[in-house]
């Protein structure tokens, strides 16, 4: 089966269980099992190739420019881990079916589990380290969901958050490490990186990369001092613990160390860091595990300890160590998954996991007893069980390892750790299963159904088979070990043997087991000593650390982001000015190359008006109506400036936009207070003025700077000028750029404009359907109303003007391609004509005559523009390629027909719709309850016999 399918199957399958909840628990579990089984069988189909020593690959380019490709590879190591992940996954799924209670949401559980499984398989099959990172982060996220599965338990939520924080942090640092590694090797493909051992180890950035990657591995694999999250993750349902902490999640860090072993190992840095961390973790985990009373906590710390053991073996950097590590990964996965599942059975049946409340279970749960005992003895390192074999190898390796110049250090610590390891295994068996039957269990335990004991039983069979007949897995272990080692060295051992003769490792092993038994005899005094001894509580430290970080973040955020908009504005302005000043002060300035153009009196007059209006606004802004008039002058002068500086299109756009903006602001001012109160202190106004002056000077300086210099490179405008007529068929270059050269931009812009209008409409709807509506309806205007709301003169005038304006709009639209004009301007002109009808004849009268809703007009505009663009696909051209031709209908002049005009029609409609929808929305707010919308265009009509409207008297 294709590697893609193996990785994709769990992800695709993850969609189903969540949806199938209503189909029942059996269906959910069955489906999940089938999906996993399919992936597992798919993996097995690749077994012959892997056994033959081939590397199966699959490749799809994803983002080649970043070096990120979807490349997968399956070698011995990848196969080994994928086998564990999918194989143990199958057992876990079967076990979880029986374990989960009736009110647990099973679909959700299996969805998370499959997501996690897919991410894990993705990690072990990735050939691209960036892809690997993606899957790595996915495991952090999906394990967060799994650990926090029991959302109602605070421990579950806290444990999940802690796991995510620690592993997520490690993931971040690993991204850094991987990027450095990729930079050194010149490729992000593992197959390339693994070939470049010498290059990478000689690079000065090797140590930073190593540290960052190891940080990721250590956090994931719970190595000291990041071991503390793992026991807290035990708040998860037991199937999750069994899965995450035996074969998968915590092994991801180990996997990565094994994967990177050929390039990263063998240096003194690697040896010291990895071996020390592993050794410390092994000893500390084993000691703590002995004194834990919760079965799962005991197993959690034993997992930490065993992960330390594997890490230490990888750290030694010898081929034997690598082989022993591989073998122990296999053995640990089998006995630890079985033990977790047994602990889950005890919890499930006795309703407690507290060792102090258990004991004597061998009579009540004989099957569980046998399973747990064999698995625990294997973990303790008793001969003829698989744990013994790999533990011997570890001790053997320890005797050859010298750390910090002391030959005795590693063997002594290894023996010490093994001793505690044996002791907690004996405690697990002795205090849970042996001893007299008690009568105070929370519920009377008995063996569960086969659904729960069969999965661990299968694993225990493996424990015994490997333990008795190691030659069965020997070739496979060597194959995996060889793919770990790569081309770095040769594997020297030829066989995995139970009996090695009277070697030091044997005596260390005996010392550990005997010492463990002796330790158990003095367990109670030892426990009292342990309880009395002060020791740091990792959770408290972690929480204090998090609280400190949160407090710091709060201080920073509350300083910057305290809900005062004026403060954000000031911070932003000062930052921008500061950044600009820094660039100015550190950059170099070229000499001026452009002659200044002489100032004409007319230009000076325009400038004077603009400056006077703007300054007037600043000083008189408390009178809002006045400032509105002044901003009108400013806008007018800007338009005039555009005409003056050869931009007729801009001038036309600016002046029409100015009209609708002023109308809009007038509508708003109808509701808002008409004066701004004086609130800020003199101090504050001085500060704001200083910022404003600095900002103004900066903008002026920058504008001045480039106005007197030529562009550094020749602008692309020359292309537009040269091709506007030839390629676009129009002489108005600005319009041709809008509808042709940069048509796609324009298309986006009309969509944005449409969205803005719809947003305004939606906000109006919200306001009118909420409590604001009543206030609006009962509002008494703070200004006297005009007596004649719809003056006859104005109504008549606007009616007469309407067809004229429409004609002008049509003319501007048509000539746009060759003369100043086009869809934008025509749209604004037509909008103004329609707005004038609203103003003169009233909202009710105009709305009644509206044929098409404005939403529809926006939509039609965007559709027409889009379809014009799509049209070019039919002649196999890219989106929005334009074409044109000249036609002549006899009585008229020859004129041009361009697809760009159709596009411009879309622009026109979108602009009309958007402007009108915005203004109409504002007007709707203004309708009041006690003033009826007149049905007639004029308030006073001599031909009617209306009673005088109330509004007439109200005002004057």
């Amino acid at each position, binding site marked *: 089966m294709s590697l893609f399918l193996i990785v994709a199957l769990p992800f695709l399958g993850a969609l189903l269980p969540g949806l199938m909840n209503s189909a029942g628990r059996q269906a959910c579990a069955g489906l999940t099992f089938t999906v996993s089984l399919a992936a597992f069988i798919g993996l097995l189909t690749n077994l012959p190739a892997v056994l033959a020593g081939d590397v199966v690959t699959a490749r799809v380019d994803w983002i080649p420019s970043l070096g990120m490709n979807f490349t997968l590879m399956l070698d011995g190591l990848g196969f080994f881990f994928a086998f564990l992940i999918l194989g143990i996954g199958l057992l876990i799924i079967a076990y979880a079916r029986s374990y989960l209670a009736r009110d647990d949401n099973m679909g959700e559980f299996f969805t998370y589990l499959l997501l996690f499984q897919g991410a894990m398989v993705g990690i072990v099959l990735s050939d691209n380290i960036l892809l690997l990172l993606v899957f790595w982060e996915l495991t952090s996220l999906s394990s967060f969901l799994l650990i926090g599965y029991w959302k109602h338990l605070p421990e579950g939520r806290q444990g999940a958050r802690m796991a995510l924080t620690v592993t997520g942090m490690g993931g971040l640092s690993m991204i850094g490490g991987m990027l450095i590694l990729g930079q050194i090797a010149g490729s992000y493909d593992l197959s390339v990186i693994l070939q470049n051992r010498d290059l990478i180890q000689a690079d000065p950035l090797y140590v930073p990369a190593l540290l960052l990657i190891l940080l990721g591995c250590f956090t994931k694999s719970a190595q000291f001092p990041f071991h503390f999250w793992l026991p807290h993750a035990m708040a998860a349902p037991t199937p999750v613990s069994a899965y995450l902490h035996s074969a998968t999640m915590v092994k991801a860090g180990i996997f990565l160390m094994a994967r990177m072993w050929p390039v990263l190992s063998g240096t003194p840095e690697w040896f010291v860091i990895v071996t020390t961390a592993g050794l410390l973790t092994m000893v500390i985990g084993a000691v703590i595990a002995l004194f834990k009373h919760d079965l799962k906590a005991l197993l959690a710390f034993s997992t930490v300890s065993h992960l330390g053991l594997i890490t230490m073996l990888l750290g030694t950097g010898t081929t034997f160590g690598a082989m022993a590590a591989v073998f122990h990964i296999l053995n640990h996965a089998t006995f630890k998954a079985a033990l977790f599942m047994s602990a889950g059975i005890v919890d499930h049946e006795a309703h407690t996991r507290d060792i102090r409340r258990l004991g004597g279970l061998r009579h009540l749960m004989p099957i569980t007893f046998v399973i747990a005992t064999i698995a625990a003895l294997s973990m303790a390192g008793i001969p003829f069980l698989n744990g013994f074999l790999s533990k011997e190898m570890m001790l053997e390796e320890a005797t050859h390892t010298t750390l910090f110049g002391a030959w005795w250090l590693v063997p002594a610590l290894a023996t010490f750790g093994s001793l505690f390891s044996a002791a907690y295994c004996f405690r697990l068996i002795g205090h849970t299963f042996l001893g007299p039957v008690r009568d105070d269990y929370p519920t009377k335990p008995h063996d569960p159904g086969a659904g729960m004991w069969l999965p661990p039983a299968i694993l225990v069979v493996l424990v015994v088979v490997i333990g008795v007949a190691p030659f069965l897995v020997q070739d496979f272990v060597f194959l995996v070990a060889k793919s770990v080692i790569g081309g770095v060295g040769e594997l020297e051992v030829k066989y995995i043997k139970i009996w090695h003769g009277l070697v030091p490792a044997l005596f260390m092993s005996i010392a550990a087991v005997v010492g463990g038994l002796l330790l158990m005899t003095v367990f109670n005094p030892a426990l009292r000593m342990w309880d009395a001894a002060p020791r740091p509580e990792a959770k408290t430290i972690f929480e204090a650390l998090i609280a400190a970080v949160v407090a710091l973040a709060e201080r920073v955020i509350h300083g910057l982001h305290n*809900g005062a*908009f004026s403060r954000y504005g000031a911070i932003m302005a000062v930052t921008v000015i500061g950044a600009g000043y820094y660039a100015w002060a550190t950059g170099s300035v070229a000499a001026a190359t452009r002659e200044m153009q002489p100032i004409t009196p007319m230009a000076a007059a325009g400038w004077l008006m603009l400056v006077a209006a703007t300054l007037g606004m600043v000083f008189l802004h408390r009178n809002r109506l006045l400032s509105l008039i002044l901003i009108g002058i400013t806008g007018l002068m800007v338009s005039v400036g555009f005409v003056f500086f050869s931009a007729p299109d801009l001038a036309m756009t600016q002046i029409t936009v100015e009209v609708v903006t002023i109308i809009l602001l007038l509508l708003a001012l109808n509701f808002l207070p008409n004066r*701004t109160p004086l609130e800020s202190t003199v101090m504050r106004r001085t500060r704001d003025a200083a910022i404003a002056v600095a900002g103004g000077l900066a903008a002026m300086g920058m504008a001045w700077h480039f106005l007197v210099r030529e562009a550094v490179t020749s602008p692309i405008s020359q292309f537009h000028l040269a091709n506007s007529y030839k390629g676009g068929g129009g002489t108005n270059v600005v319009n041709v750029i809008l509808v042709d050269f940069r048509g796609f931009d324009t298309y986006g812009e009309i969509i944005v404009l449409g969205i803005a209008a719809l947003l305004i409409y939606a906000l109006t709807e919200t306001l009118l359907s909420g409590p604001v509506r009543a206030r609006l309806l009962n509002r008494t205007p703070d200004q006297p109303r005009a007596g004649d709301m719809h003056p006859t003169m104005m109504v008549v005038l606007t009616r007469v003007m309407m067809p004229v304006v429409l004609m002008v709009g049509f003319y501007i639209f048509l000539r746009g391609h060759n003369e100043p004009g086009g869809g934008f301007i025509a749209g604004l002109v037509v909008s103004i004509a329609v707005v004038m009808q609203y103003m003169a004849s009233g909202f009710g009268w105009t709305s009644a005559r509206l044929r098409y809703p404005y939403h529809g007009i926006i939509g039609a505009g965007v559709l027409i523009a889009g379809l014009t663009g799509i049209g070019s696909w039919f002649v196999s051209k890219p989106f929005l390629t334009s074409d044109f031709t000249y036609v002549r209908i006899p009585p008229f002049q020859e004129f041009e027909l361009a697809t760009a005009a159709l596009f411009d029609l879309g622009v026109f409609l979108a602009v009309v719709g958007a402007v009108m929808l915005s203004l109409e929305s*504002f007007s709707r707010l203004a309708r009041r309850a006690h003033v009826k919308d007149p049905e007639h265009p004029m308030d006073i009509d001599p031909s009617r016999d209306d009673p005088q409207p109330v509004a007439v008297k109200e005002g004057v």
Partner: protein
Amino acid sequence: MELLVASAIGVLTGGGIYLMLRLRTFPVILGISLLTYAVNVFLFASGRLSIGGPPILRDGVEFYADPLPQALVLTAIVISFGMTAVVVMIALGAYLGADDDSVDDPAEPSTGEVK
């Protein structure tokens, strides 16, 4: 002439910043409008200033103003109308809902609780 345009941009920016830092919605909206003018003129001026050379192709004319900044600014002007309208609507909604047109949240002591 360059000096006039540059100083006009400066005045518009300064006035815009000052009004943007006021405490009520209406002057802030006017301030943003002034900044919009400043930015549009600034972008337009990046094509350098030319008088009497509109980018409308004519036979025999060799000199044209830079059309590209003009095209970019044209859409910017229209979009800025949409933006102003949305901001005005938000300001209006806030005022009608709370009967207060302050832009700053009322100062309240930080609770320090992030749970």
